[in-house]
């Protein structure tokens, strides 16, 4: 029988003293700043261990410095690492706070129900917890088939679990990074150039002469390499053009800031394309040699004049022309940045297409200062039997063959496939969630909860008690990246490089590394054949030896750079013959692929809903010191920013009589009210038709003693999601909020009285 999952606030669940073994473990293990360790320690008295950062997806390599007492003191970037060049970002530097966080998950927990129906977590041993997970997985496999299991995973630690569930026999492995983030861009660039943008982005910001940012707030999104390269670009006096309704950090560093009306970006892009084509500013040789569909494009944009765009975007025509000419003047070293989080309005693939087309016209794809050709070291996988062939997948939830262009599994698709519906022959019944807080990373929490309530079991593997953790049946505490080995990092870059992560200290509390969890689950599921090794070190050493290195060498140097196989970093310089991986073998300004699927082959501007009177568009973004909702309890980073605020234009604030720093509540168009009050930041940096919040605050799990209740959660206010019909991206910028000045909880109480 399915029971509704009550959210258990791990330690404060009030489910009786026995419920939580935390009191015993709550002893202060936090001795980092005790007075006997005052003051700095010189580097000679510290031992460095190589690692690569896991606080965000950029994965910069660095060194963890451990003092003579075995305490982690600091993390410093590895000078040889192309991702960071020896300079970690604030989150990487503050990674120590992840290790020392006294709120960490400390022991496996199992959900139990008391006689009176209340639910609580019981502290369990690893054997007990793993036995239970294996039992549930085995039951699922026998009764419904292994395809009814899904894995949500984020971060490098997920690879081992991915291996486990593939061996188990399910194809439903997903990360919110596609449908909630960069999916539209990858699909659009693949449709245009036959290749995607990848991560880290293959953008040559370092050498660019003109950088165009459309809603991309580099500097606030702390993608380390991009920040560093933008700084080089500023040093080199590159022209920066920033399109953003908010005066972002990047906008303040730009020559041109285009304060665009939200949701009108495609109009601006089409006008730019119009100017570049009509003033014949495009790269004629490049287009002639490589492009397909130029005439169709020219015809398509003939009416998209700057004057037309002015009425839509509020950007003055002469500015549109001037910026288009600046771009053309610097071409091909002009980079119209594809952005990263691009799921905004549901036509995001088309907007990304317009960006790709603009880059094509400027000839920046494959040229210096545009997009380079990244290369990575190919590490062979450790030998294992072939994975079983799954017979069904999440896509069966959509019987009409939707999403043919989707290149990765949609996390929201997993949700859809979990909620029973008549069309489904098997809905998903078990989830393993690794390292992602689905309550904050997926839009429309109500739907996520509905899916969760339909599960047979939910296993959460994490280091911290996040919001999602409270819904789990079994919680498995993982040790942090500073306490474990993971697979060697091999990611595409200008120069291929490998980076090692090794433990600097033993795991704190009763936490275990992901590989240990996966291996021990495998042995309980009869999948030993896929894990024919004792320790992950054996696998890493074997892999490294295949490419001429070894674990011993990597432990010494941390990062090893390799020579590029081909000297083709800017492979289209000099306009050589080249066949693109598209239907036509050319850069498709007119997309045959989209046309085949009956989508617009060339992007069109469509009007999006606008806020009603008294409502403001909810824009959200990032702060350089936090990674989504993952870091808000990290003491070092919490010190930098302990809550977010809602940015309100002074004119709007005047109208509402909202004062700076006043705590207010937000209510969205569907009547959802923020759980916690949010501080108002009355600032000129935001347009009067929208408000802005940094994502990742307003945690509901009380076990996060620092982050609980601090700030507002934009995720809970994103209840209207516009699906991108091309690739299933979840457009989240179509939500509107209004302000509540009095505590709504109080009002409700009065109503009841």
């Amino acid at each position, binding site marked *: 029988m399915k029971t509704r999952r009550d959210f258990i606030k791990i330690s404060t669940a009030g489910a009786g003293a026995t419920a939580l073994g935390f009191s015993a473990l709550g002893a202060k293990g936090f001795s980092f700043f005790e007075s006997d360790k005052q003051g700095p320690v010189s580097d000679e008295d510290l031992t460095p261990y190589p690692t690569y950062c896991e606080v965000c997806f950029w994965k910069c390599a660095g060194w963890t410095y451990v003092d003579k007492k075995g305490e982690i*003191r600091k993390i410093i970037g590895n000078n040889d690492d192309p991702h960071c060049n020896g300079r*970690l970002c*604030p989150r990487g530097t503050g990674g120590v706070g992840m290790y020392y966080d006294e709120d960490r998950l400390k022991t496996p927990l199992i959900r139990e129900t008391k006689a009176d129906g209340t639910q609580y977590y019981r502290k369990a041993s690893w054997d007990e917890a793993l036995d239970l997970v294996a039992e549930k997985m085995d039951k699922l496999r026998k009764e419904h088939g292994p395809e009814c299991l899904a894995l949500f995973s984020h971060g490098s630690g997920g690879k081992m679990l991915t291996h486990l569930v593939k061996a188990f026999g399910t194809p439903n492995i997903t990360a919110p990074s596609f449908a909630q983030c960069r999916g539209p861009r990858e699909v659009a660039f693949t449709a245009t150039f036959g290749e995607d943008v990848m991560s880290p982005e293959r953008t040559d910001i370092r050498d660019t002469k003109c950088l165009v940012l459309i809603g991309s707030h580099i500097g606030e999104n702390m993608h380390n390499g991009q920040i560093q390269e933008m700084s080089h670009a500023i040093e080199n006096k590159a022209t920066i053009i920033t399109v953003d309704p908010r005066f972002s950090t990047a906008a303040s560093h730009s020559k041109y800031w285009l304060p665009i009306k939200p949701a009108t970006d495609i109009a601006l892009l089409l006008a730019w394309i119009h100017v570049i084509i009509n003033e014949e500013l495009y790269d004629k040789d490049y287009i002639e040699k490589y492009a397909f569909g130029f005439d169709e494009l020219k015809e398509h944009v003939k009416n998209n004049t700057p004057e037309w765009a002015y009425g839509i975007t509020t950007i003055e025509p002469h500015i549109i022309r001037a910026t288009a000419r600046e771009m053309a003047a610097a071409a091909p070293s002009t980079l119209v940045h594809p952005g990263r989080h691009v799921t905004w309005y549901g036509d995001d693939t088309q907007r990304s297409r317009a960006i790709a087309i603009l880059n094509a016209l400027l000839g920046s794809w494959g040229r210096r200062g545009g997009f380079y050709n990244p290369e990575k070291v190919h590490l062979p996988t450790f030998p294992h039997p072939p994975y079983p062939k799954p017979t069904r997948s999440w896509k069966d939830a959509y019987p009409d063959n939707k999403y043919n262009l989707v290149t990765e599994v949609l996390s929201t698709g997993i949700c859809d496939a979990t909620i029973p519906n008549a069309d489904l022959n098997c809905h998903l019944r078990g989830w393993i969630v690794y390292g992602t807080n689905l309550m904050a990373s997926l839009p429309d929490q109500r739907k996520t909860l509905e899916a969760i309530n339909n599960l047979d079991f939910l296993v959460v593997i994490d280091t911290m008690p996040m919001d999602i953790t409270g819904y789990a049946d079994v919680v498995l505490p993982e040790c942090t990246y500073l306490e474990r080995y993971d697979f060697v990092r091999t990611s595409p870059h200008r120069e291929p490089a490998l980076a090692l992560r090794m433990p600097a200290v033993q795991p704190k509390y009763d936490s275990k590394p992901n590989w240990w969890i996966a291996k021990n689950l495998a042995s309980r599921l009869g999948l030993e054949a896929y894990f024919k090794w004792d320790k992950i070190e054996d696998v890493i050493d074997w892999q490294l030896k295949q490419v001429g290195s070894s674990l011993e060498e990597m432990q010494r140097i941390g990062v090893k750079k390799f020579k590029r196989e081909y000297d083709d970093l800017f492979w289209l310089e000099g306009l050589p013959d080249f066949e693109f991986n598209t239907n036509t073998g050319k850069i498709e300004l007119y997309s045959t692929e989209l046309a085949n699927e009956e989508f617009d082959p060339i992007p069109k501007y469509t009007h999006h809903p606008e806020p009603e009177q008294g409502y403001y568009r909810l824009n959200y973004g990032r702060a350089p010191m936090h990674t989504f909702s993952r870091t808000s309890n990290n003491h070092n980073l919490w010190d930098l920013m302990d809550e977010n605020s809602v940015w309100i234009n002074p004119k709007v604030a005047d109208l509402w009589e909202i004062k700076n720093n006043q705590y207010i509540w937000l209510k969205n168009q569907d009547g959802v009210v923020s759980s916690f009050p949010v501080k108002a930041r009355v600032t000129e940096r935001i347009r009067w038709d929208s408000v802005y919040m940094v994502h990742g605050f307003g945690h509901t799990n009380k076990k996060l003693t620092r982050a609980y209740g601090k700030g507002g959660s934009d995720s809970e206010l994103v209840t209207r999601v516009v699906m991108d019909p091309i690739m299933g991206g979840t457009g989240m910028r179509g939500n509107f909020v209004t302000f509540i000045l009095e505590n709504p909880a109080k009002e409700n109480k009065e109503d009841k009285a």
Partner: protein
Amino acid sequence: MRYAMAIDTLKCVGCGDCVVACQTENNVPHGYCRDWIVENVNGTYPSLDLEFRSERCNHCDNAPCVRCCPTGASHIEKGGIVVVTHDECIGCGACIQSCPYDARYQHPDGYVDKCTFCMHRVEKGQNPACVDVCPTECLHFGDLDDPNSKVSLALKNRTHKVLAPEAGTKPQLYFLT
């Protein structure tokens, strides 16, 4: 020798990396910081100007904190670095009152603490931790008496300003504009 720092406001994105790096390097207790970021917004939408400044002790040439210290705990070290000797500090707070930059604070252990330009690193020829970590490389540190030091070159090639020059403290933190 005269150590100084130049901060490039055209590059700084206000990420706060300098603050965390200082915290871990110098074991600064949580809730305190020796350096910090100021965000300054001027103007009316859409005619705006935004400046980020990574600030810390200015290691003033004419340091009021050194002048008013009753015990000599606050003193000037080689290269003009203003330092507090913890065991001589009585925690009277006079230096905190005297600093126009609010760069000092009372350490939970009682003594007054502040930025040391990472003297323990500088002595060995390293940069302060904040300088070495900055992703935008907007911090330049060095000896003003050496015309080829990074800071000298930065000041030579760029326009710059100091904070509250009217306080007469002759601060040695220069902000490139």
